[in-house]
């Protein structure tokens, strides 16, 4: 039988990364995600799987170590929280441009600036709309439970290698710090160098006699070359949009109104839906699991069925833009959120729903 464990979201990420054959973790501590590296240090995977766990001298160093490891076709990852993720943006842009796979975990805290250490979702724009410079996208996964912290770590690596692109796991302080039941993924051995050469021939593991030289770069001095790179990236993003959308529907079938929320807010809103239904208000919850690609088509479909939508986020209203683009003016879309590290309570959301949408 599968073993059920009780652990924090951050610990689940560390366990899952080791189990799915991650080759290297490079990070710099910051609350509320320090348990990721702490757990890895406790588990000492370098003694079992041979995985490298390294505390870098800074966030900038960490993301560039990931860049280097990813260039060798290795499964590499980093993690941080909001201010630290801002520091990593240059590296992420380079990695996206160089088409390398890696996983970046952001356990969001309240900003802007050094902000607070409490949970927030205010890095939605940064994660989904670019963050670093240039026309690039990351696949962004938004776990809403400790189980998903483990599952999405494995999924993130799979998607990263499938599309040769950075994948972000966008969680927040609640999901990182809380403990829930979790069943960890099975152990997969790390790939050997031969396996990597075979599976990822683009990797720069050292040129063997007779092989052509692999070059990994994000620099093209000729604009024509750079436009080609850009077109290729954009084609890849359209492919991702077509294939990889994930979402969860909760009591949506007969819904007159729809709440759209991800991560912790989706958990809170699930309770709001239950409370509203007790009062006879038919509300459903749509939880985007991938924030890029966004479940645009599904929301478009619900714009035909519902009378209004409420986007609930721990920010001043960011995902609401994507909801509105999908709805395209068909029904009113309003936002409810708390800022700076405060998690909205289920009854607060219910009141907002009544005030703004159910009239």
């Amino acid at each position: 039988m599968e073993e059920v464990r009780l652990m924090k979201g951050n610990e689940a990420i560390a366990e899952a990364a080791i189990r799915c054959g991650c080759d290297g973790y490079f990070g710099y501590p910051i609350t509320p995600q320090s348990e990721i590296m702490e757990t890895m240090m406790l588990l000492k995977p370098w003694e079992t799987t041979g995985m490298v766990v390294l505390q870098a001298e800074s966030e900038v160093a960490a993301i560039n170590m990931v860049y280097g490891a990813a260039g060798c076709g290795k499964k590499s990852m980093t993690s941080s929280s909001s201010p630290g993720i801002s520091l990593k943006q240059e590296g992420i842009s380079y990695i996206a441009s160089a088409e390398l796979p890696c996983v970046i975990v952001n356990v969001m805290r309240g900003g802007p600036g050094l902000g607070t250490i409490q949970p927030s979702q205010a890095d939605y724009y940064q994660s989904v709309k670019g963050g670093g410079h240039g026309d690039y996208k990351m696949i962004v996964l938004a776990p809403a439970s400790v189980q998903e912290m483990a599952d999405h770590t494995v999924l993130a690596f799979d998607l990263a290698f499938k599309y040769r692109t950075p994948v972000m796991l966008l969680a927040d302080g609640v999901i990182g710090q809380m403990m829930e039941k979790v069943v960890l993924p099975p152990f997969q051995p790390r790939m050997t160098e031969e396996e990597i050469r075979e599976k990822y021939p683009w990797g720069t593991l050292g040129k063997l006699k007779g092989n052509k030289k692999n070059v990994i770069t994000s620099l093209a001095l000729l604009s024509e070359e750079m436009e080609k790179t850009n077109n290729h990236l954009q084609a890849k993003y359209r492919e991702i949009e077509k294939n990889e959308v994930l979402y969860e529907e909760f009591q949506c079938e007969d819904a007159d109104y729809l709440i759209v929320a991800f991560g912790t807010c989706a958990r809170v809103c699930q309770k709001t839906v239950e409370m509203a239904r007790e009062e006879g208000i038919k509300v459903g919850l749509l939880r985007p699991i991938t924030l890029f690609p966004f479940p645009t088509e599904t929301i478009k479909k619900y714009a035909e069925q519902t009378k209004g939508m409420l986007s609930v986020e721990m920010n001043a209203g960011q995902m609401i833009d994507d909801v509105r683009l999908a709805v395209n003016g068909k029904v009113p879309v309003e936002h409810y959120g708390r800022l700076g590290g405060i998690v909205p309570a289920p009854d607060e959301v219910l009141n907002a729903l009544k005030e703004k949408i159910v009239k």
Partner: protein
Amino acid sequence: MKEEIIISGFGGQGVLSMGKILAYSGLLQGQEVSWMPSYGPEQRGGTANVTVILSDERISSPVLNSYDTVVVLNQPSMDKFESKVKPGGTLIFDGTIQHVSARKDINIYRIDASNYATEHNMLKTLNMIILGGLIQVRPIATVENVLQGLKKSLPERHHHLLPMNEEAIKTGMNLIEKVN
């Protein structure tokens, strides 16, 4: 069955570990559990609290605005959370708290744990005394499961302390008294 609990006190009183032991007990009972700590600056000297949910069904929000059971170990926690007990719910407070909720629609219990622990040199197991009181009036977990839960959340090198904790739980079960 679903029990939504918040435990609140000073940092260092063992509030978070008490919640953890409850969560492990729920796990052993085959329930869904969530354990959400306050991990902010309050953990470092101010009031710390933890929300624990034990449920037979999938748990929605780990963050709540009202609770079936509220356990408070200091005055600021009493002031903050007494109004958050659901009507018909349970409020348990430590005997050192002076100003107690005047609510008539909830069950209020006093447990003179801090004073007893100080007198009997049991301050290290204060949280287990409280936990004993809690499971006496809210039978959400058996003593056996709590002890098993404690064993799971305690590193093996501390397992020789288990009998001491069992004694504390039993003490708490006898110490708790209804006040309204």
